[in-house]
């Protein structure tokens, strides 16, 4: 065991896979010499050489598009998008190829590739640096979208993502890149993608969250506890596929469910989780499945961001409302 933050854990995962598998290639904007703007890839170019860990021209479609080519040709590219807000130029390559080549070729071709990117707000950033648009990626058939919420999960899930033969969008909650430190297993281990994890057992209400929101929910749970409310906390971990089973089991027990997300509300992740709850447990529901989310607005610049973000109070407010419903 070793104390790590999420940046260390992701770096460790990359290091392990680069070390054991020559087909793993890490590239993107400033990931080489600089080690990434968040230092996630620090030291890897030095260790594995500029042929395996390198900087590219500033062109996201080019990065993802070439990764599709590399993957088809037998490599396992792990590419970085510098920020969530800069993945959009690559959207066509993601939706038209990275997520489809397998289906199109009836399984003859595969694209074992990972697109890593930091996402989410709360770091006082410039415009386009705080977005959480996981819902649109979750809607793309053929793609898997995952989000760790702890250093341990980040390491295990990234190793699983690199070893998967599917195309994985690996979203990193940059707000907690360094905010959480934890003991993380040394050496190689992997965490199966697609499975949620129940972080706290409770009876009154289920709260579903992921990424940086997990910690905010945990803070809200302290208030809830004081108010005598017992919360079951599910860390979704996988945006697509969604772990219906874990959600169903929990909501059948609690009869109430709230999803906490950072992205805009409408057509966001929250409504899908609610839909799953009503599909799986309609007759157990004692309150409407609900959501705490961003509003349908652009993430504000730092001075206004607190109006947009989910703080523990906002989460507790909704917990109380739903429990009293």
């Amino acid at each position, binding site marked *: 065991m070793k104390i790590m933050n999420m940046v260390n854990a992701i770096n460790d995962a990359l290091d392990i896979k680069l070390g054991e598998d020559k087909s793993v290639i890490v590239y993107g904007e400033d990931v080489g010499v600089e080690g990434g703007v968040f230092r996630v890839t620090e030291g890897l170019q030095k260790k594995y050489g500029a042929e395996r860990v390198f900087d590219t021209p500033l062109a996201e479609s080019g990065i993802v*598009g070439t990764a599709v080519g590399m993957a088809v040709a037998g490599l396992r590219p792990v590419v970085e998008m510098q920020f969530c807000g800069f993945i959009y130029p690559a959207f066509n390559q993601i939706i038209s190829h990275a997520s489809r080549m*397998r289906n199109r070729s009836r399984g003859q071709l595969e694209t074992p590739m990972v697109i890593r990117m930091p996402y989410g707000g709360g770091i006082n950033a410039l415009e386009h640096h705080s977005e959480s648009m996981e819902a649109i990626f979750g809607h793309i058939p053929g793609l898997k979208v995952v989000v760790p919420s702890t250093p341990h999960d980040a390491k295990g899930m990234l190793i699983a993502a690199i070893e998967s033969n599917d195309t994985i969008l690996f979203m990193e909650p940059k707000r907690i890149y360094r905010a959480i430190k934890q003991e993380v297993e040394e050496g190689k281990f992997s965490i199966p993608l697609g499975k949620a994890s129940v972080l706290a057992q409770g009876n009154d209400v289920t709260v579903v969250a992921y990424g940086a929101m997990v910690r905010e929910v945990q803070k809200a749970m302290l208030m809830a506890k004081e108010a005598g409310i017992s919360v079951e906390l599910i860390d979704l971990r996988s945006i697509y596929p969604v772990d219906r089973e874990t959600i169903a089991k929990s909501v059948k027990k609690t009869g109430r469910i709230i999803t906490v997300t950072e992205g805009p509300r409408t057509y966001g992740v929250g409504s899908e989780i609610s839909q799953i709850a009503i599909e799986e447990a309609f007759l157990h529901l004692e309150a409407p499945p609900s959501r705490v989310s961003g509003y349908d607005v652009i993430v504000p610049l730092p001075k206004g961001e607190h109006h947009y973000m989910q703080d523990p109070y906002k989460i507790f407010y909704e917990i109380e409302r739903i429990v009293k419903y």
Partner: protein
Amino acid sequence: MFDEYNPLNKAMFRVIDNDGKVVNKKWMPQIDDDKLLKIYKDILFARTADLQIVSYQRQGRIFTYPPNYGQEAIAAAAGVLIRENDWLVPAFREMGAMLAKGVTLKEIFLYFMGYEDGSAFKNAKYTLPMSVPISSQLPHAAGIGYAVKYKKEDKVVIGFAGDAGTSEGDFHEALNFAGVWKVPVIFIIQNNQYGISTPVRMQTASDSLAIKSIAYGVKGIQVDGNDFFAMYKTIEESVRICRNGEGPVLIEAVTYRKGAHTTSDDPTKYRSKVEEEEWDAKDPVKRLRAYLIDKNLWTLEQEEKIIPQYKEEIDRQFTEAEKYGPYPAGDIFRFLYAEMPDDLREQQAQYERFLAWKSTKVK
């Protein structure tokens, strides 16, 4: 050759004229008579198949199809020179090259009949499916080029796009990455004068498409794409350059789409008979045929005899494809993921339950 035909000089590379006469001995490629005859027959076969598909479409037996008619020399030359282990990254108008790689006519038929199975290419190694979103395949070619170089394989990559395809951002990014990475990729732009109805002079104000190579520091050349020998020589030389580690290369192959953009298109809306006739005179098959006849390697009689045989063979394969049978429901689900999500499996089960119910309603 790439120096002599530097795109800045604005000279198009050609070897034979419209009558099949060699006008550029210096660069006439060395091809055995036998081999050349075989090539010509393959081109003839591809053209026959292409025309036949259009008529199948008219009969309602396949859906939309983008004809190759008039452009066959380009894909044919690539097809002859590409090796089993080289990579082919097609757009959607390169039948000759695909057949050469081992894609079967039947697969092509199946694809345009509406089966994804037609893109599985079970006999063609290192061949990507057709790519519909314009130029989006070019970054794949660059990425494959990186893999080839990284693995130190003795392979080249041939990637295709159309003239209008040079306007997309992905053309730019692919060429730029390939240039920076110095990968063994031959980008062939089939400049068939139109992107659907839009003439190439409305795509760009640059002097040529070949000249765009300068923006990426890669070798470029403009070639008469209706001149098989010029195309052959250019690709042969490009392959050599790539194997030498001096790639990538950008080839603008100047040609003409004699047919419609697709079977849903009506070219009379945007181009003139005069123009079409002008280009008829430059038809690639006609020019190669004239060369062969001149060299006593071929006769019109032979051609008249062989075409019906081809038609029969094509028809045989087509009718076989037509018997391909129903599309299993499971096939829409099973190929998306190496590890199929539970939820998707459940969606499939739901669909099957619905089908069972429906079968009780609809007889």
